[in-house]
């Protein structure tokens, strides 16, 4: 008979038992989920009633029940209770004005200052949810910016886990304190945690304070930051401010500057034309180095905001580029942006350029159809 190296059936039996345990665990998990749902349905109205009771006390007598907030301090250590509390709070605050509810929020600030001491030691999901809860509560700006909560949030920005950084940034930006955003940027710079510029821009857009002030503060310290942190600031500025022409022009001209920042400057000058930028854009468009095609293509697009004979001449030259994007953008700027009639383009002899022009004409017709 064949002899085996080891007894296989025991290993398989062990696996089977473990799998059955997983199945049993699944079943128990489903049951506990249902039970929790049932409990939540009972607890949540109770939490809401308590909040309303406190609000009545605050509004009628200007007092707070210390025992209630002490109770919260203990209960909110549980992330599950925290979730229920935030849901109830969101419901309850609809009944009051922001000013009225700020009194309750201020009392809650002390509770959260205590809570962060315990939450600091907890796992990522719990710390992340605390940051999320802080955002949802929307503490009054004045008391929030001087509290220890901000330190907790800033520290989260040095964490490897992107969700912690995301939740923390949301909480900081939704409050509207400029100096906190500056601190946040510094923390991210110091810890070298890469955070996608698109996500950073998204958070800046959530900022509730003065946009112009935030833009100037972040811009004035831009030398401290790496390009991935400056880029979202520039994009943010492009969305609402035309007061940065001079500053962006210096970036546009500087050959040693990061290419992404220079490209962003080109985009800025498309939205906010600036006479001195015209010549630089021409030179980018005329660039023959194919590795620089992005500058040329973007400049071709931007020049649609700089009408004039010279621009038409430069864009016509752009039609002869070996790069498709440069040709396409030049044609689009001529036909769609500058609305150049067919006559001045009659002398275009390159088949590739003609083909591109023809395509742009058809493409623009489709756009017109859509608008109609």
């Amino acid at each position: 008979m064949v002899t085996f190296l080891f007894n296989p059936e025991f290993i398989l039996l062990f696996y089977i038992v473990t799998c059955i345990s997983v199945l049993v665990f699944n079943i128990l998990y489903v049951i506990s989920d249902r039970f929790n749902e049932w409990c939540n349905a009972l607890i949540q109205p109770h939490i809401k009633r308590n909040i309303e009771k406190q609000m009545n006390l605050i509004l009628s007598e200007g007092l707070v029940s210390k025992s209630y907030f002490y109770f919260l301090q203990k209960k909110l250590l549980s992330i599950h209770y925290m979730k229920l509390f935030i849901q109830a709070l969101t419901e309850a605050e609809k009944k009051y004005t922001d000013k009225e509810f700020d009194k309750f929020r201020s009392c809650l600030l002390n509770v959260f200052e205590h809570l962060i001491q315990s939450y600091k030691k907890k796992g990522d999901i719990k710390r992340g949810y605390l940051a999320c809860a802080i955002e949802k509560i929307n503490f009054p700006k004045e008391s929030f910016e001087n509290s220890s909560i901000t330190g907790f949030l800033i520290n989260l920005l040095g964490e490897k886990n992107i969700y912690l950084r995301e939740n923390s940034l949301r909480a900081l930006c939704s409050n509207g304190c400029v100096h906190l955003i500056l601190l946040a940027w510094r923390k991210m710079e110091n810890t070298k945690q890469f955070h996608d510029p698109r996500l950073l821009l998204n958070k800046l857009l959530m900022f509730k304070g003065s946009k112009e002030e935030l833009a100037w503060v972040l811009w004035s310290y831009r030398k401290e930051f790496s390009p991935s942190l400056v880029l979202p600031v520039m994009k943010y500025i492009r969305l609402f401010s035309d007061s940065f022409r001079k500053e962006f022009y210096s970036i546009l001209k500087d050959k040693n500057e990061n290419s992404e920042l220079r490209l962003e400057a080109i985009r800025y000058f498309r939205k906010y034309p600036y006479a001195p930028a015209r010549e630089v854009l021409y030179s980018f468009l005329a660039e023959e180095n194919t590795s620089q095609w992005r500058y040329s293509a973007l400049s071709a697009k931007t020049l649609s905001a700089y009408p004039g004979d010279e621009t038409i001449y430069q864009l016509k030259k752009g039609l002869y580029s070996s790069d498709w994007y440069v040709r396409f953008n030049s044609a689009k700027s001529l036909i769609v942006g500058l609305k150049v009639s067919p006559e001045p383009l009659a002398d275009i002899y390159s088949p590739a350029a003609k083909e591109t022009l023809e395509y742009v004409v058809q493409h623009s017709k489709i756009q017109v159809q859509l608008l109609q």
Partner: protein
Amino acid sequence: MPKIILLIYSFVGNFFLVYMTVYAAFLFFSVISGALKLNKEKKKRIYESRIHHECCVPVSVIVPAHNEEITVLDTVKSLLCLDYRLYEIIVVNDGSCDNTAEVLVNSFNMTEIKRPVVKKIKCRNERRIYGANVNGIPITLAVKEKGGKADALNMGINLSEFPYVICMDADSVLQRDSVKQIVTPVLEDESVAAVGGLVRISNGAVLKNGEVVDYNIPWNPVVGMQILEYDRSFMASRIFLDKFNGNLIISGAFGLFKKDIVIAAGGYDCETVGEDMELVLKIHSFCRTNKISYSVKYAPEAVCWSQCPSDIKGFAIQRRRWFYGLFQCLHKHRHIFMAKGFGVIGYISYLYYLLYEFLAPYIEIAGIITIITGCFINVVNLPFMIAFMAIYIAFGAILTITSFFSRIYLKNIYISFSDIVKAVVFCICESFFFRFIHLFIRAFAFIGYRKKKKQWGCIERKKNGKAA
């Protein structure tokens, strides 16, 4: 009994023992780790550890189509309902003999345009290109010479305007939030080169505007067993291999790719049947050889619904194609195997696909023959072998059930009691019968296959939302 025969049988017996035990261990650990991962994802969902992004990554959705007049319109309509801001749709009609192009042109009032195609990746010539703009979403239809699915995808990549491309099948329906979900790994990590989504079988699902309005596991055993098989493979190997950037496959039904990497790597290979796997292997190979920091991710939250064959014949055609594709990919990229610079991909992923995906049918059939002959010459303990096989099969069945129900409860999916019964019945059938049918289909996949290697894999199409 001659000693040499006994020695041979001892060697073969022990080989199988080790082979099956290692496979069982792999399945076991991968299912458990898959369940843990989904559990963590569920907690993240509950406690809002999510990326809320309104700033979208612009994507081009490429739909290669060949004789898809029945499904293509629904597919494009569902794409127009995506919960996403910045994307374009590119349909590539690859030499269809039916009215695939006409259906789209008439439905969306598309205009023929003379669009130059910059062929950064080689592909066959276009015949006509149409354009339209529906609700602000640009739609491009390229009608081209027949060159196969890979060629059609290459054409789509050449036409795409955006830095990321989503490649999908013309009979697939993307769930409304699927694009948002599949781009999330790109926002988490800028080095992500490709992301695979979760493919679920749409036979039995009723979909409306990219949302599931009703779902039942069909009584058709071929479909039912494939549902379980998909769940097991996605839950087990995909999630597990994702842990160490070891996924070698992103399903052709739904995958996101960084366009410049795909172009630099040479795009889809038109000579390979399994073009989806080949591209992922190519990306691994290209990035590792050129020392480019990259990762291939799997996003289980990004769901795509795809039709599966509903009869054995269709199933056999599909699986033969996949198996042949697997062989081509493993052969073409054999340099990865145990290669120093490839790390886990060379040592674990490639080895897994070689031993437990490609060689499995041959090894298992050889094992069955050995047992039968061993019984005849009385060198095998028959009761023991039967018990062993029974335990092994039961183990497979339990793992399948575990992965199916783990996904159901961890993703808060409601299923009816009858679906639970069907799942259990199909699971047992899959382990005891279907698995062996699949085994033989794969084992004989090579016979007569070569002649058809550049053809599209076709299954009988039905409109999505109607149960098979």
